[in-house]
């Protein structure tokens, strides 16, 4: 089957009409090119979103509150539900068994000053577990301690952006900064991936409550779900949600007043979305490829027609149907495979060339993995075989006598 003769003949038919071969090959190559590039972009999108997720540990539950939208138990709507320290204490001690947690409170656009420089940055009050929950890679100094919270120390940990903008090369550790006019000491700095976060100034939650508004308010809560699976984390979400609604008299259907979001579940949802996108891309790529395969089938049909006499002569000389069939099918496979491989190479090259310029918040590292490549090649071989098979059957049906009479 795969001997020199076969290849000589394939080489002949392929080179006999170079333009036709090139155009046919182009349709297949383009199909696989589009498939590969789109798969790459799909992966890029997924990588980008996953990187964005990298902000927060996946096994966390975020608890937020807002204004009520439904009346409940004699309470009017449009009432702000405010979580307080007691809520956090009750939830973490009695409602759920979270291995780590942190309350969170944020002051947007606070004035941060260092020597003569100043700028506006969000100040965030958190608890010691927070760096695990939001994955803050420390670049120098230390993170907030339990001791800092107990003593309500005026210490802070700053993001990378402040180093560039305020400290200008100076070592921030041990430096004193003013946060809305109050002096804090910098004990650490961090740098993280993702869009947000590098402008943040983290201070102990207790200090913030004491120094800036003297209350016991907590804006958000982050709870770790530890090793829990999706089912376990969903149960945790339900428990927290139920507790807050009961304590704050919030209607069970009020989706705005109490919002408990499970990152794990959200991530699972993204996974489903991306599976859908990948499937969609396969369908589009598949149909593009199908168009190419039809082109190949068309050309093979013409080749068979052109070579009717030759096929008849071969049969007169003792060629079996099988040898004619395999000649045409192998030719079709060779045509699709070679042009498909070129399309594949072009697609990978394009992705590699574009990748460095395509960095975006929701887009990173477009890539084509081995599995996609192998699947694409398998699809090509199958497409080639099918597109060769139908014309080949026609060639096989040629009776030598009819072929010899054919003009």
């Amino acid at each position, binding site marked *: 089957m795969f001997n020199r003769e076969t290849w000589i003949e394939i080489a002949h038919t392929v080179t006999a009409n170079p333009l036709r071969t090139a155009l046919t090959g182009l349709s297949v190559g383009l199909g696989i090119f589009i498939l590969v590039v789109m798969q790459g972009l799909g992966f890029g999108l997924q990588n980008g979103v996953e990187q964005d997720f990298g902000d927060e540990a996946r096994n966390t539950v975020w608890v937020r509150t807002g204004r009520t939208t439904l009346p409940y138990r004699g309470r009017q709507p449009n009432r702000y539900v405010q979580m307080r320290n007691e809520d956090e204490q009750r939830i973490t001690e009695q409602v759920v068994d979270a291995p780590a947690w942190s309350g969170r409170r944020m002051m947007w656009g606070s004035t941060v000053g260092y020597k003569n420089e100043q700028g506006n940055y969000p100040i965030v009050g958190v608890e010691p577990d927070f760096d695990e929950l939001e994955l803050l890679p420390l670049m120098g100094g230390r993170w907030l301690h339990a001791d800092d919270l107990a003593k309500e120390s005026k210490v802070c940990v700053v993001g990378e952006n402040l180093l560039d903008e305020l400290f200008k090369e100076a070592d921030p550790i041990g430096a004193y900064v003013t946060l809305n006019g109050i002096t804090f000491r910098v004990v650490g700095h961090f740098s993280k991936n993702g869009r947000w976060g590098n402008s943040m100034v983290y201070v102990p939650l207790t200090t913030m409550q004491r120094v800036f508004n003297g209350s016991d308010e907590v804006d958000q809560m982050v709870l770790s779900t530890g090793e829990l699976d999706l089912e376990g984390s969903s149960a945790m979400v339900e428990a927290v949600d139920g507790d807050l609604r009961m304590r704050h008299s919030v209607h069970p259907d009020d989706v705005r007043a109490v919002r408990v979001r499970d990152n794990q579940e959200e991530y699972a949802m993204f996974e489903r979305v991306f599976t859908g996108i990948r499937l969609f891309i396969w369908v589009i790529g598949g149909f593009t490829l199908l168009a190419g395969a039809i082109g190949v089938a068309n050309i093979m049909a013409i080749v068979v027609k052109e070579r009717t006499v*030759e096929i008849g002569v071969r*049969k007169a*000389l*003792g060629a*079996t*149907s099988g040898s004619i069939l395999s000649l045409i099918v192998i030719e079709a496979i060779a045509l699709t495979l070679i042009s498909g491989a070129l399309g594949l190479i072009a697609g990978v090259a394009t992705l590699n060339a574009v990748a460095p310029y395509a960095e975006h918040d929701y887009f990173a590292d477009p890539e084509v993995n081995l599995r996609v490549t192998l699947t694409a090649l398998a699809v090509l071989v199958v497409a080639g075989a099918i597109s060769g098979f139908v014309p080949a059957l026609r060639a096989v049906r040629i*009776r030598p006598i009819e072929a*010899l009479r054919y003009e």
Partner: protein
Amino acid sequence: MLALRGIEKSYPLAGGLLPVLKGIDLNIAQGEMVAIMGSSGSGKSTLLNVLGLLDGFDSGGYDLDGVDMAGLSEKQAARYRSQFLGFVFQSFNLISFKTALENVALPLFYQKVPRRERQKRAMEMLGKMGMDDRADHLPSELSGGQKQRVAIARALITSPRVILADEPTGALDSTTSSEVMEVLREVNASGITVIIVTHEADIAAQCDRTIRLHDGVIIEDGRSGEVVEPTARGARSQD
């Protein structure tokens, strides 16, 4: 060697069936050189195709080398063609992108002879045809007579028992024609049965036996030059 008993064959036509062979009885012995003559539409080419297993027949019987050829599958027919028969065509039917040597070697390819062996035997066969110096030429680089020599070499390469030639000189001038006939006579002299379809009386005259077909039946069968009057009916029927 070849025995036909009451072979009938029709071709489907728009208006119905067109009978082409209407009961052919024919015996050809090993080593004969036979010309099949007849005007266009007499069924001579169809008869050759039936003999060559290139075409089936509707009824009757055909024994080749004592084996019944009725109801042969495509694959079996291919095997018998490959083993017993060699074909020479009017339009040579050489494969255009293969050299003379590759064309001659092609039937051996279908007999799964190893490549080196194929080349060697094809070269020997071209040598016998006086064509070894043209082995690497493509058909387009050969003259008509040279092409037909290559085609005969291709027909002979598998050592067939029967050579079937369909108007082998039809596309050649008279000098080249007689050269080709000379080659075919030599082939016949080596013991191979040669059957030539022709409408040229002088070609038929160079065979041992002439069969004349008219409207799908054999009307004359005998020694060439005796039964058939070459200049009289042969010449007329061409026009």
